[in-house]
């Protein structure tokens, strides 16, 4: 399974999907999540239409498209507004597509997964990011201890070469679905 970044909805100007991929992927042997990274949540009809159009053309090209993942760093913006945004997005997204979100561990001042749990029933999975940029967030063991009763299926995203030792609770957590590894490209600027 691959999570492929399709585009970004960036700050500045009208909220449009900035395509980051030159063409349509052709990965018939893989199940794909189409990832949209967002700096903002004021999406309009055109933003959504562009995403739907890409989801459609990925399928048309013979790919198995599981759904849409929204990669939004809610750390500085609060999760209440985000839940509302996702509820609305879920309502507009055709049923055949699942909805996934990334969740940074520091989603509230207390890094409390309970705020993430409020997305139950709205999103189909949460990919918990254990890193920021290129490094693992220290203290992740604590965070996972508080995820014991997390109600949404989740995967754990690890950064390539990051520090990681699996918290023991993961092995028997009923909602744990496995890992996603975030690959790094060497810096060349």
């Amino acid at each position: 399974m691959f999570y492929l970044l399709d585009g970004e909805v960036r700050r500045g100007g009208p909220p449009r999907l900035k395509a980051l991929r030159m063409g349509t992927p052709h990965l018939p042997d893989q199940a794909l999540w189409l990832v949209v990274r967002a700096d903002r949540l004021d999406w309009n009809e055109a933003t959504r239409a562009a995403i739907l159009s890409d989801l459609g053309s990925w399928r048309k090209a013979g790919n198995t498209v599981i759904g849409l993942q929204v990669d939004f760093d809610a750390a500085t913006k609060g999760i209440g507004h985000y839940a509302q945004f996702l509820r609305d997005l879920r309502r507009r997204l055709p049923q055949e597509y699942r909805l996934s979100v990334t969740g940074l561990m520091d989603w509230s001042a207390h890094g409390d997964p309970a705020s993430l749990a409020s997305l139950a029933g709205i999103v189909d999975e949460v990919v918990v990011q254990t890193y920021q940029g290129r490094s693992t967030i220290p203290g992740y063991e604590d965070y996972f201890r508080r995820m014991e009763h997390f109600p949404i299926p989740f995967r754990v995203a690890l950064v390539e070469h990051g520090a990681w030792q699996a918290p023991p609770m993961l092995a028997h957590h009923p909602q744990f679905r496995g890992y996603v590894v975030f690959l790094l490209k060497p810096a060349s600027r």
Partner: protein
Amino acid sequence: MKRLALLERKRRLAWGTATLAGAGLLAGGVAWACADSSCYPDWRLSLASYDCAGQAMLSPGNDTRVNMLWLMRSLSETAPRGPAPTPSDERQFGQTWLSWSGLRAALWPAPEAKPAEDAQPASSCQTFATAVPAFNEALAADKGVPEAERKALGQWRAKVGCGDVAWDGPSIASPAGRDYLAYLKASQAFYSSDWAGARQGFAPLARSKSRWIAETAAYMPIRIALRAAIAGAVDKYGDFAGTDKVDPASVAAAREAIATYLKAWPQGRYAASATGLLRRVAWLGGDDAGLAQTYEQMLATTPGDSEAAADLAEEIDIKLFERQNADAILDRLNNAPLLLAVADFKRMRRFDDGTASTKGGLPDGQLAAQKGQFAQHPDLYGLLEATRAFYAGDNPRGILTMLPDAARAKSFTPVAFSRQMLRGMALAKAHDPNEAGFWQELLTGASPFYQRPLVQMGLVLRWQRDGKLAQVFAPGSPITDSMTREILLQTMATPAILRGSAQDASRPAHERDIARFTLLYKDLAKGAYGDFGGDLALVPAHASAEDHLWNFSMQETIPVGLFSKGKWADGNIACGPLSQTAAALARSPVDRKAQLCLGEFYRLNGFDGFSLYRPDPKRPGLGSGPEGFPGRLLSRGELYAAVIADPKALPDERAYALYRAVMCYAPSGYNGCSASVSTNSLPPEVPKEQRKAWYNELKQRYPASTWAKSLRYYW
């Protein structure tokens, strides 16, 4: 990034027992990896290796885009700027350091986004934001289109480019209306990658009576050809597969279409776009020399205050500097000093051990061979020569000759500023007695926009070396940069400086909170228990007590209130307020109960893994001097060790200390009870044998205790 290298090497993905059922990847998702908070600058002036934190002077370590922008801003008039805003996600940069995205946002802040308005008419999803309004405007102005047709055409336009269009609605009978319909059908063919259909559709429309349609139809062959050129150059992920996979016939067609359009519409609405697309043609067609010459000319002429400068820097970076053969392309040019300068800075990059970090580096003699190309830019060439000499370790006195003192200028272009900064760095290297005076002179004309804080760092580093830290915090001090002061407060400041800063009403609240927090934390952790009670009076009544400390110095809120109204106990052992615990320790530093209560305070208020700012000992910089606060930090783990080692401690106290000492390693096996762990090193650990011994002792010696009963493992 590099700060975690050690941790990474030692703890490379230990998977534990969990399965790897859904391992996947987020390809292409690292474009923003450097605009995040994992980037921590080394607070020192020399910037030899590529760093995600750049500075106001042109340096080898700067992002090439930053260096390009500083060059453009040196070659054109720019408006004076105030201090740069600190983005909330890059707090650690202060106003001294910058990322490319941070610099862009500081120069050209994006307007606040308005909430979504779904009442507005939906627009096409694939087209450029301006394309639909332009069509609608032309349609509205065209008197030849009847109202009913106009409405239908407008509705179809909104669907073009978004999947299939049914074209259902009234039939379009007017000759003008038919042209618009034909235009939409040709557009739909374009968005559906039907290049032949699009070409055939637009061709007759170049003679349309509608001027807008005629012109747009004349322009579209360029876009069609460019899309067709790359249509086959895509890999299985949908990423560009390289210019060698491009269709050359389509590139040639695009080149021709641009010439045709510009001939017919030299002042046309798409003239700028068509001219700009010549760069894309050059890039796709492999005309590297032509592309580079165009870039050189644009670097020289694009105003550094316009956002176009930032776009240009990004384009040049992707289309030229990120290419494997960039150096080869540039070295073949004979009149491209600006591109060469950017490339030379990059080629001067070195690893920490001094070896060149780019392939080949900048060999001796190469810069001299370029001199002729810099005839119009002697200052830039001088800067390059001096930078090379500085990072090659040449005698700093020679650099002083290359860069005459101009510190008293009223203002500085980035190039002029870089020359003076480098002069200051050479003075520092030469241990010149006039260094501090030089920095102070430079402060006056340096812009508050990233320049002044950098000069302040130069001055502080000198004072730090001379043991004159108190001058930083003296009244009227020229060191006004808050992040600079906050770093010194956390590292080298004496208790007296901390107390003075906590009370200095002329300083920002955040800085005063850093002073308070550092003072109270060190009072406790370094055993100045007798001072704690008095210092606690410095905590304002409304101070925050949120237990959030894992990224301490980056936080908006510094929870000073933890010391006055934190959590003292959670039912394990009975502890009063922290002030009582500190008072007990002041009376007797070996009061075991009070030591355990201090441990409870650390444990319950998020101090595990907490660290004040600590410079990397291998990369000394701001704050690397001797600590002004006496004593050694005593960690939570060490408190337990002290209680365990005391045969006179009460059984309950020893049992709890054993329990907690074991729990320090739960469940990961890492030491969670070390003091002031910085992210660049692993916390010290006691051997696993020792943890086992604690566990056994608890079980065997205090079997009836709650702690022995509740502990089932050791880690």
